[in-house]
């Protein structure tokens, strides 16, 4: 489903800094992995390449059989819109839309409106336990609640792959566990693949497999403690 093939990415010209030098990775449908690594090791950069928000200098990112670098920006955007979901560290709910409308955004973008959309929104809000807060504005929610809403938004349109960059970075341990559990359950329920970028071993352990990004290369990790 997702194939990362000898990808490299360099930033800047003088001094040029090769953040990713040779990264390869294959993810199958329904597979849920974690990527760990020191700050500045290029984890977010890798996610951006996967999402087609940025293009590699070398190598290819193939998603659903399509080489991202061969698509133009709007084609990549449409691909992303339909098949990807995101959870951010800073939540990024739109401040002036109610929870319900925030969550419904990907559906609207994909042209799904009306009762069908409403039904799915109800279902996912129910699943993340926010049915009763559907009309609240983001500012009135706690961090944990906001991130649960973000998880709902990432999954509402049944994407094939969910990318989560430090989703628990702004949360206390308890809320973090709650959100991670939810994320895992929903991914498995929908059969979606997921990539979780995190610094937290505990978080990483909720995934199926852990990778480590170090000196521009990605390697499978046997023990989470190795990354600390």
């Amino acid at each position, binding site marked *: 489903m997702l194939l990362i093939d000898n990808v490299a990415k360099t930033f800047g010209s003088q001094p040029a800094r090769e953040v990713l030098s040779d990264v390869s990775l294959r993810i199958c449908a329904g597979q849920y992995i974690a990527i760990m690594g020191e700050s500045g090791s290029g984890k977010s950069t890798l996610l951006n390449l996967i*999402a087609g928000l940025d293009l590699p200098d070398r190598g290819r990112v193939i998603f659903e059989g399509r080489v991202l670098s061969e698509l133009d920006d709007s084609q990549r955007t449409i691909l992303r819109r339909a098949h990807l979901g995101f959870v951010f560290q800073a939540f*990024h709910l739109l401040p002036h839309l109610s929870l319900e*409308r925030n969550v419904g955004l990907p559906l609207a*973008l994909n042209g799904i409106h009306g009762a069908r959309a409403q039904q799915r929104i109800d279902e996912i809000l129910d699943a993340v336990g926010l049915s009763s807060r559907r009309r609240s504005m983001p500012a009135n929610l706690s961090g944990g609640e906001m991130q649960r809403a973000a998880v709902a938004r990432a999954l509402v349109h049944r994407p094939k792959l969910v990318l989560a960059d430090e989703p628990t970075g702004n949360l206390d341990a308890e809320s973090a566990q709650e959100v991670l559990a939810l994320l895992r359950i929903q991914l498995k329920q929908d059969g979606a693949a997921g990539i979780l970028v995190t610094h937290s071993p505990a978080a990483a352990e909720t995934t199926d497999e852990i990778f480590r990004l170090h000196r521009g290369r990605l390697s499978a990790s046997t023990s989470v403690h190795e990354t600390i």
Partner: protein
Amino acid sequence: MSAAAFVVLDAVVLRPMRRNLARTTLAVLAIALGIALGSSIYLINRSAADEISLAARSLYGLADLSVESVGETLQDTLYPSIARLPGVAVASPEIEIEARLADRPRASIKLIGVDAFRYAEMQPAIARTGNDSDVALELLNPSSVFLSATAARELGLSKGEVLNVQVGLRVEPLEIAGVLPANVLRESAGLIDIATAQWKFDRLGRLSRINLRLKSGVSLKQMKSSLQQLQQGQALRITTPGEATDDALRLSRAYRANLTALALVALFTGGFLVYSTQALMALRRRREFAILHALGVTRLQQLWLNLSATAVLGLLGSAIGIALGVLLANVGLRTLGQAVGAGYFSQNAAPVNLHPVEIALFAAVGMLVALAGALRPSLEASKVSTAAALKAGDVLSAYSPANPVALTLAFLLGIAVLLVPPIAGLPLPGYVSIAILLIATVAAMPAFIRAVLKIRPKTNFVAYEIAIAELAGTARYAALSVSAIVVSFSLMVAMAIMVSSFRTSLDEWTQKMLPADLYLRVGYVGQSAHMDESLARSLATLSGVSRIEVSRLSEASLNPELPPVVLIARSFDVDAIEDSLWITAKATARAPDDTTPIWVSEAAADLFDLAAGDLIEMQVGEARLETFVQGLWRDYEHQNGAILIQRDTYTRLNGDRAINTIWFWLSEDASLRSVRDALVANLPPGVQYDIRQPGEIRQLSLRAFDRTFAITYVLEIVAVAIGLFGIAAGISAQVLARRGEFGALRHIGFTRGQIGGMLAIEGSVLGAMGVLAGLAMGVVVSLILIYIVNRQSFHWSMDLHAPVSLLTSLALALVACSALIALLSGRQAMGVDVVRAVKEDW
């Protein structure tokens, strides 16, 4: 300053200013622009006022008092008795004649006939005229004239050349015996011998005034009362040179006051821009303030730092503005001259400059405007709830609705102020009302934006929905972005409606006032040139002329305390008066038997507090007349009032049978050209006259109108440009603050185009709100301008006429502009680095 304080200053004030350099610069420039316009208009005004009063003053020389007649002229038999009054040191008789220049179209010169020796005692500087012989002796020569320095320069004449003036239809050559020193007679005028003047200009036995110098120790009051006893059946007007100067100034005061108001408008708009930039900055930096507060910067420190930084910005703006203003004033006085001043300002003014006190005053004004603009935002910034602002996902602006009761009260207050009568003859309450209404409108903008967004149509178009939600959520923030455009656009609309109403009314008025086919005019009020009845009779018999009417322009006095009004003595059919006069009120009754019917212009009605049906005593020359106000008429020509009277009555009254204007109606088959040619052929050669068709007069008056209002157009455009800058500043600040949001949207699957579309929608909706509010407020302000301000300052009434297509296209252009501005400021939001913005917390 301690190191710690500097760190705080740096963090709270300096760095943010440097980071928001563009917006900071904009605020400084807005203040600078306001101050520049204000100080330049002030300077132009001051130099005009100085010029006018110096000119008026120089006319009187060392005189302490001046005796004039209430009607036209004094009898010179009065002179010996006044000169003999105890307490009078010198009495200098003068006669003033507005002489038509024979060899220049439509030009005239004021000739002052003086008794050379008495005059020299009033104006000792005259001795420095630089002639070898005695000026006084030279003046006695009946064909000599001395020109003032201004007149010599304007006419391009010098000593030894000849000045041809027209008396009736006769040409009188006068030899220029010399040019006076500049400080003797400042205005454009010439001196001749009084006996020559009386004789050559058919004013035997007449005087315009007698200037008196009093013996030391004699009080003005004493002198005035002994003069009053001396009246000899003539109503005397006794003024001091100071009072005469005031009269001269009053003529142009309304115009100058309105210019000043325009300058204030610019400053006002600048103040709003400071307010919105400061408020936007404060909103955007909520988190920053919260962090600083959490770290230990006290709220008072924050407030103080913010305000003092703003004061510095205000001072900076003022400094730039003052320099610019002095420059503008000098350039304006030199190049625009007549165009700027509607003829009130002389073209050859010396360079002007501000005095230190004035500089300090303008600097203080600029600083205060900046502080006033920054006060509320700074107070709010210092009150930011630390906990709320530090929380992730904190929203830029919470909706804090203005108190509806306070808003309603403000609007009511704005209306109520209109009931206050003008102050010192100036429409100040009108301007105060406009300011209050504008401030209230800006305060009501958030509520207005939310109300309008509530009734908007709903769609499935995601970019539109998000844009609307964003606007509704940040209504206050959005309102700030548009406050400057609301203010400037409403003023633009108001001016446009006012100018167009005025122009349309003027146009209709000229057509109404000019029912004849052709007009022949020789001379004007008080001018020496005129025609006589025999000429009129012979012109009436020319082939192609079916009928004529004639009029004579003279002066009358309704109140000895006030300047005289123009008296138009015209032959006309009383029942058909509405064919040639724009009657605005009519007396229901007919004039009582022992009174004379008169028709009073609106300006005269306002100045003398007259209504149709009133009885009033009028002084024409030496005659007193019981008159009945038969009707009021609209008049854009005589700002100090005019009165129409039947010519028969007038000639019976004082025997003056001279004619200034002849109206010609042509027979159906007559050719305008040939009649015109025949008229010219029948006028004595070498005589100055005006022959015009109504169309030409209409064009001339409209052109003069457009020239006068040109400066207001420029100021309007400047104000609207400032307003657009406000929108640009607001939207780009917001785009910067929302980078994280845009990043997230790009992740979710928004295309660049969709984000651009979203911003364009926000921009145009925002612009449309500003334009709508501005339009509504502009209409209200225009009503105030038309029905109150103009009526009070110029005594002109006009019919409302909105330039609908102009306003519509302006409004659309502004909305398009704001969409474009939003798009441009959003360009960075659509770049790649927005993707990285998702990790920025704020």
